[in-house]
């Protein structure tokens, strides 16, 4: 379904929203379509009913526990999804290398931790706060610089080339980053030091760990800062203008190269932070992590409405929660089926995603 949504706009730059609306209207109004919609609706009601019974059976404490894990996991997907959505919003490029940049964030912070003296002996003490902040900022800056370089080398020269060309260079960058991380650390799961406090508190019957809170709080702070930045700052305004109409923006005297580079920088900063949070939360990173994380994050971006910052955050959270609920209440083997079934359903009835697309207008 996402293929149908994105591909025409990539190849022809056509009015995707309009044509999809037409297709959907035709689908929904046809007699067969109406019957299918009814069946779908019944299926959805049935699934919700089963879920509610299960939630009721297992009690509120368990529900809260699973929800916490889902939100923490989803917050990480959301940070990655923001990078996809920002880049797509401004130049309509699916930046395949973005998931690997997220992994690279984990690798770089893992590499930096010993230099600032952050080891497991200090886990959970006040002495870990400053080193962690330094590692966070350094990782974010390095990831940002790498992504700006990637944009300069692999995407900018192709900005006016046919749409598939930058798509292929993006896939190429993804392989290059994965290959470099493979050469750097090998094929194994790497242990990431467990630095966060192990403390927890009980809320009803659920046990909430400081780790869970940490992930959610950092992700929310970053998202608020991003929203404020894009909404209030001059550069943010330039970004929105570039997203709307590149030529007019350039005529107004805005350097669009700089604006696009800044978008890549901010996307990578969030991915770098996401990679570091992932490492601190799960205490492991592996070179090909970006493949699956990127897949889910991109799905999250489409889910929430590509190009839409709040949409990406919402999409990430929802995907995290769906995974946790599927693992906690149903069969894990079905998790991906459930995610993509929900995605297809949402896109059939809301082709622009939950909160609507924001992409350049042609």
């Amino acid at each position, binding site marked *: 379904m*996402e*293929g149908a949504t*994105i*591909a025409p706009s990539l190849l022809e730059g056509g009015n995707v929203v309009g044509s999809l609306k037409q297709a959907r209207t035709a689908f929904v109004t046809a007699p067969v379509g109406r019957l299918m919609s009814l069946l779908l609706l019944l299926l959805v009601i049935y699934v919700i009913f089963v879920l509610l019974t299960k939630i009721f059976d*297992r009690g509120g404490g*368990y529900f809260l*526990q*699973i929800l916490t*894990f*889902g939100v923490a*996991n989803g917050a990480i997907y959301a940070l990655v999804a923001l990078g996809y959505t920002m880049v797509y919003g401004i130049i309509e490029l699916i930046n*395949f290398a973005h998931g690997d940049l997220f992994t690279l964030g984990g690798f770089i912070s893992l590499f930096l931790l010993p230099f600032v003296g952050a080891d*497991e002996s200090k886990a959970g003490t006040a002495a870990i706060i400053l080193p962690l902040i330094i590692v966070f900022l350094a990782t974010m800056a390095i990831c940002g610089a790498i992504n700006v370089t990637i944009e300069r080398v692999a995407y900018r020269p192709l900005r006016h080339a046919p749409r598939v060309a930058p798509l292929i260079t993006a*896939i190429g960058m*993804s*392989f290059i980053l*994965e*290959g470099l991380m*493979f050469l750097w650390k*090998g*094929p*194994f*799961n790497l*242990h990431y030091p*467990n630095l966060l406090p*192990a403390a*927890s508190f009980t809320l009803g019957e659920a*046990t909430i*760990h400081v780790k869970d809170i940490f992930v959610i709080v950092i992700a929310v702070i970053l998202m608020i800062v991003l929203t404020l930045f894009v909404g209030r700052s001059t550069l943010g305004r330039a970004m929105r203008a570039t997203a709307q109409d590149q030529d007019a923006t350039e005529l107004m005297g805005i350097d669009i190269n700089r604006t696009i580079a800044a978008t890549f920088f901010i996307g990578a900063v969030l991915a770098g932070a996401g990679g570091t949070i*992932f490492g601190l939360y*799960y*205490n*492991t990173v592996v070179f*090909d*992590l970006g*493949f*699956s*994380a990127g*897949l*889910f994050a*991109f799905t999250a971006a*489409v889910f929430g409405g590509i190009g839409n910052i709040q949409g990406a955050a919402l999409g990430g959270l929802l995907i995290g929660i769906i*995974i*946790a*609920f599927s*693992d*906690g209440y149903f*069969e*894990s*083997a079905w*998790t*991906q089926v459930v995610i*993509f079934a929900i995605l297809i359903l949402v896109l059939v009835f809301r082709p622009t995603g939950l909160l609507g697309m924001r992409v350049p207008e042609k």
Partner: protein
Amino acid sequence: MQRRWYTAGAIIAGLSIVAGACGAAPGGGGGASGDTSKGEIIIASNQPTSGGDASDGLPAQNGIQFAVESKGSIKGFKLTFKGWDDTVNGTHDPQKGAQNIQEMISDTKILGMIGPNNSNVARAQIPIANRANFAMISAANTNECLTQTFDYCEKETGTTPAKLRPNGTNNYFRIAAADTFQGPAMADYAYDTLKFTKIAIWSDNETFGKGVADKFSQEFTKKGGQVVARQDFDTKVTNDWKPFLTDAKNKGAQGVYAGATSGTKICIPRAQMKGILDVPYMVPDGGVNAQCIKDAADNAANMYGTVAAADANQNPDAKATIDAFKARFSKKEDVGSYTFPALDCANILIDAIGRAIDANGGKLPTREQVVKAVSETKNFKGTTGTYTFDKNGDPTSPTMAIFQAKSGDWAFVKQFSVGG
């Protein structure tokens, strides 16, 4: 869109395969002297001796090399060791294994080989070796479908023992216990010794992992235990096991069994159990290694694992051999759980070649004669047990060993004979 991701995955896989072809490792010289007037016989080995599997493959190759070198000669023939590596870009590769066995067959001095380490490599090698009547003895292959016919073999592995042996005679032997024993062995240990009645199980949804998990589950339920939670994960996209672990905790699981390998994150959930579900963790032989201890991080204690071969250290008669081996290969990482089983395989092959030479009137035997002699192996006393092969090529009384993770390493708990 999804298809594009799969395409991307396929390209990665393709690149990885192209990236790292490796040549044959040179054999070591030296060893005992003896009458070598009649010529040379080469004993080949096929192990993953570089990349991620080298921690299993090199120790096994050392055992084979040691056996050949210490024997030196047999009935007038000089014995030489030659090792092949089946690693491509960091992991064992069936294609590379197939190529290796072709090379071995083309050298007429090679009368048999010890290996491989991995069941999927064996699946690629057995048919090629079978057409050439070339003897193979493996110390570590555990997939039951390599030797035994079950109705699910065709579906799950794409082949059957009969299809793997196109010329109709068996040329493949092993001394490891098949996977049919691994899950039940741990289930018995969990129920009888650890006194668990409620268990949570997860698997990586792959042939090996799901297979051992299912067999664990069947045996545990048969004994009267209860499987309170069961999940099959796609480990490529799963990072978070906490919802499953919480579910297991709420249902009162006293232990968790994982059907997976180090390549499918077997001990990553162990680290996540800390603070959620503080109960023992049980793994098959795919987790009894250093990577698992590393992945489990600060929660590595209280893990149990099965290995499909006996521990030579428990055999007092093997002490002299072990000491001699350690004098020749002194580093800690030179020895692994399959070193002495591999050494035994090499000695079984050499013993069979000796009998084949006798049967051929003291002349160089044919490969058919060697295969026949191996199949006639009776009560061969090795460092890890006494071996007789059944008609399928399996040992008549394979051994299963249980290990426990203690202070950063796997410590022997007990071993017992299975089957028979």
